[in-house]
């Protein structure tokens, strides 16, 4: 837990406003004070290019641009590629997980999740260097 920088700006990406709110609340409960939201990958990418974010927590199934497409776009961007991306999704079939790993996901949380599960994953993400395939 000590490895986590709670002042870091986090971007929560999900098309469901309720889910964004849940993730935001859980992140606040963990200790994060600066959390922003985006309803899809395209909007998220626009915000990320504005700079200042230290972590992306994204859903998989979203309109306009999916979480996987967002992850690939992040890893393909010279300025964003080292950004940790945590996938928080109901897409939990083996092929989805492998696809996400191959695309360079930092870790993977299955919905529904607890604050403890998210904290555990975040601790792991920041305890090691983010796997990047790019």
């Amino acid at each position, binding site marked *: 837990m000590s490895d986590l920088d709670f002042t870091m700006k986090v971007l929560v990406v999900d098309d469901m406003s*309720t889910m964004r709110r849940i993730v935001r609340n859980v992140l606040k409960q963990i200790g994060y004070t600066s959390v922003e939201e985006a309803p899809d990958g395209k909007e998220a990418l626009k915000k990320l290019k504005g700079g200042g974010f230290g972590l992306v927590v994204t859903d998989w199934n979203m309109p306009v641009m999916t979480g996987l497409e967002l992850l690939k776009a992040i890893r393909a961007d010279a300025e964003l590629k080292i950004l940790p991306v945590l996938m928080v999704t109901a897409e*939990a079939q083996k092929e989805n997980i492998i696809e996400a*790993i191959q695309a360079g996901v930092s*870790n993977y*949380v*299955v919905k529904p*999740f607890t604050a403890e599960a998210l904290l555990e994953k975040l601790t792991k993400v920041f305890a090691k260097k983010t*796997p990047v395939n790019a």
Partner: protein
Amino acid sequence: MLTEKVIEEGGDEVDQAIDREIYDELGELAKYVEATTRTLREMETPLATTADQLPQANDFLAELSRMTEEGTHKVMSLADAIGENRTQIKKALDDIQALVAGKGDPSKVQDRIRAIANLVEQDESRLLDISVALSFQDLVAQRVKKLVVILEDVQHKLLKLVVVFGLQQGKAHTDHEGQGYEMLKQLEQSKTTALEQGLVDNILGEFGFN
């Protein structure tokens, strides 16, 4: 003379046989056209109602999504408000502890206790509001039941069409493409192949995620 008469009579019989055959075939054709017209007339209403029902079902589904979203936000807002009150109660208790320990004016203890009582009362009302807000689940369930009935009705009418027009012969050409089919496949798969976090972690472990 006799030969001519025999030929003439034989020719009449042949002509009559041909006429009867044509008449029979025309009769069959007329029956078939009538049956087809009747079937088409019978299908007209189910087809029209199906065409009406499907957009309605679509609207109901969109409405369900809105209802669950609104209901969830309502519950979350109330939970947030209770959380904020809890922080205030905690602070008031800290104040009381300090006042009792002789830090500050002891007469303020009563004020703090009253403040706590007010906050608890507010939360009682909010807890009740949460229960009421959760009744959206009942509304959603009722609508889902109605939607299931509509879908069953549509399915029944479509099956009738399949039977009437013998569409099952074209089964080999069933369309297994398109977004709808893909979504249905995903829903079906998610019933049996959705993984728990523990299993996901095992897969992640295989790829060096510890």
